[in-house]
């Protein structure tokens, strides 16, 4: 079910990987719509990786759209802003899409407010790098690809290292998702502008924008715009292959070579950021708009009207689904993010958070339980693994609970892209068991360290 229109020029890629059905045609041509304001918003304080934000408001406070309602709780933490004019109705603990129950702020929307946001650009000429990073942190900007890692931490280049290349990730290699695709097609100017703002403080040599070949319209638009820029920006078409959007795979595809185990892209002089994140940078510095809404793909085979929506952070997922016509009787699985790495939801009463790239409702057809057969050592998982691991061997070890032996097979290098489980003809839960193994090994290492330190 690959899309009919693909980019016909030269494409680059990494070694190994898999080719799942794309399912992108469900929503790839749906323009971004604005989600109407709803009565109530729930904003968890820990939507990002790192320390949760600290509340600045109390119950009953009247707040404005875009107002900072929680400040960063540390360096690896970001600010949080109100998506609407309204009143803080409750500060308590609420269920979060990740399954946890976490502290958060509940806001009751002011029904009479026009919900207008006063745009106020920030003068970037007056900022030095330190002030820029503080601004990005205050703006609440996190990686919008799904990991929600605070962006300013990445932008703060460690001493002794330099950023040679800014690499924009527009792969969107997860099946079904089209949010980044629509952002690139509808907001290419903001993306290029975001690169230029960022580069003012990073002083890179060149920027790359990596886009999978199934988005020829995005490639073309950004390519045309990039040509007009004084700063060298190259749009690279990438082969449609999963997990092309993984940071390491993107770097290998564009620059060649590999990111050494245990090192970060910045050790190679590369800074990778999602296209949506870079657009958020432009929105903040040109219009003063903090990260209070994001583009979310609402799709799947069991949703009535698939769409790409600009959703205020904190909107209950159920209202977004309702707006898209609701789910069909066939609905059998709710997912956040893509089908390869996304997380399952037991209900839709949790809010959209900064890391929500897609809401996916799958029908019974896609929700089959796979019968598990013995491993026949066919090696399909070995050919699939982009990290060149041996999932077959690790799977056999995991089955016996030999976690420590798995270390010899470099299980800790696995970034859980799930290509192995996708490829396995015997339906063995490979990546699922590696998650367990990694968790166990991490816990054990932490314990050993604690014993050593005491």
């Amino acid at each position, binding site marked *: 079910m690959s899309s009919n229109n693909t980019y016909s020029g030269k494409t680059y890629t990494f070694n190994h990987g898999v080719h*799942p*059905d794309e399912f992108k045609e469900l929503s790839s041509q749906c323009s971004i719509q604005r989600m109407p304001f709803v009565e109530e918003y729930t904003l968890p304080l820990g939507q990002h990786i790192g320390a949760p934000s600290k509340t600045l408001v109390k119950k009953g406070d009247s707040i404005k759209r875009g107002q900072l309602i929680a400040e960063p709780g540390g360096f690896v933490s970001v600010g949080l802003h109100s998506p609407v004019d309204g009143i803080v109705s409750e500060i308590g603990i609420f269920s979060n899409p990740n399954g946890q129950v976490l502290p958060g702020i509940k806001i009751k929307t002011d029904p009479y407010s026009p919900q207008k946001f006063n745009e106020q650009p920030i003068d970037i000429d007056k900022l030095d790098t330190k002030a820029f990073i503080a601004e990005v942190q205050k703006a609440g900007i996190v990686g919008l690809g799904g990991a929600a890692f605070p962006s300013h931490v990445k932008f703060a280049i460690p001493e002794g290292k330099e950023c040679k290349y800014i690499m924009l990730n527009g792969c969107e290699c997860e*099946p079904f998702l089209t949010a980044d695709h629509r952002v690139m097609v509808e907001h290419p100017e903001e993306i290029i502008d975001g690169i230029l703002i960022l580069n003012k403080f990073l002083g890179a040599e060149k920027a790359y924008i990596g886009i999978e070949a199934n988005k020829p319209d995005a490639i073309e638009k950004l390519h045309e715009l990039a040509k007009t820029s004084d700063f060298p920006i190259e749009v690279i078409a990438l082969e449609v292959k999963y997990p092309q959007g993984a940071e*390491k795979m993107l770097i*290998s595809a564009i620059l060649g070579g*590999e*990111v*050494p*185990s*245990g*090192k970060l892209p910045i050790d190679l002089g590369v800074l990778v950021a999602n296209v949506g994140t870079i657009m958020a940078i432009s929105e903040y510095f040109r219009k003063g708009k903090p990260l209070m809404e994001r583009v979310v793909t609402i799709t799947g085979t069991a949703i009535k009207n698939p769409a790409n929506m600009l959703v205020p952070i904190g909107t209950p997922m159920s209202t977004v689904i309702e707006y898209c016509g609701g789910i069909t009787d066939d*609905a*059998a*699985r*709710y*997912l956040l993010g893509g*089908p*390869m*790495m*996304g*997380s*399952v939801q*037991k*209900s839709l009463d949790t809010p959209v958070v900064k890391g929500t790239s897609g809401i996916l409702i*799958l029908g019974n057809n*896609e*929700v*089959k339980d*796979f*019968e598990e*057969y*013995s*491993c*026949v*050592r*066919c*090696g*399909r998982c*070995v050919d699939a693994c*982009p*990290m*060149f*691991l*041996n999932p*077959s*061997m690790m799977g056999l070890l995991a089955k016996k609970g030999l976690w420590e032996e798995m270390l010899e097979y*470099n299980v800790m*290098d696995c970034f859980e892209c*799930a290509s192995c*489980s*996708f*490829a*396995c*003809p*015997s*339906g063995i*839960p490979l*990546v*699922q068991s590696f*998650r367990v193994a990694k968790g166990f090994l991490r816990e054990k290492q932490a314990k050993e360290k604690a014993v050593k330190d005491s």
Partner: protein
Amino acid sequence: MEQIRKISVSTSPYLKDAITTPKIMMTVVYTLVPIVLISIFYFGLAALLITLTAVFSCMFTEWLFNKPSDRLQSLKDGSGLITGLLLALTLPPGFPLWMVFVGGVVAIGMGKAMWGGLGQNVFNPALLGRAFLQAAFPTAITTWSPPDGRYFGIRGTNAALPFFQGESIDATTGATPLSKMKFDHIGTDLWDLLVGATGGSLGETCALLLIFMGGFLLFKKIIDWRLPVSILGTVVILSGVFYLINPEVYPSPVFMILSGGLLLGTVYMATDLVTSPMAPKGTWIYGVGIGILVVLIRNWGGLPEGVMYAILLMNAGTPLINRFTKIRTYGH
């Protein structure tokens, strides 16, 4: 009141490739069907009886040696069926059926179940079964009745009673192209080798069909192209060298490839997923090893044919090869 909906919760991924292990196994079975048919064409009812006996024996043993809860699944995965078919295809047409049954029990029982079932065995089960038969019944397994156009006659000693070798009911026993070459230095017509009009085991004679099926399995990516290339390449080069040195004594590379069980073994047994190495480098070592052993045994061994032992020996080396050809992890 809202309707209660059944929602599936599990961890990602939520998509899976369409290929499944039973599908892989069944594709192999489908490619074996024409080979069984052509063996029936050449060797008549005897070939059919041997095939049915071997398949029944393997499936029965599979069923017997599995836990009751695993029985259905172990039959469904199709691996027992393949072992049965392959065992039959390596046997001579006049082989007593009771021995075929014993071979099937040994193939699955000692070749697979004893190791812990599918995926755990070191040796190819069908070849292990055949090796057992070769050791236990050396005369019966080297008695070849040639194709003679009789479709319904039972041949040789097919009907021998258990624990008896049986008296040959027809006097015609022939030789295989390999034994003729080895012991009498008489070649066989190339065309006969290609179409399979020679003496030999049921499934090994028709070279053309085996080449075609091998090509199909390669196209379907069920077998690794490195294996046929490395095995056949090694055999051609090595036997070619000896042929050039002394064509009087040593057979030509073309004869080497087309005669005996080399093609059957290359396409269906050396490529056994379970017992061949996983990494590309290991696959090359394994394939070249088989090629060398085949030429050594055929040219200087006591037996005219060496494919079975060559593959079994390299099977034994597979765990070691896997250990020394670990794939380099990204970024290491």
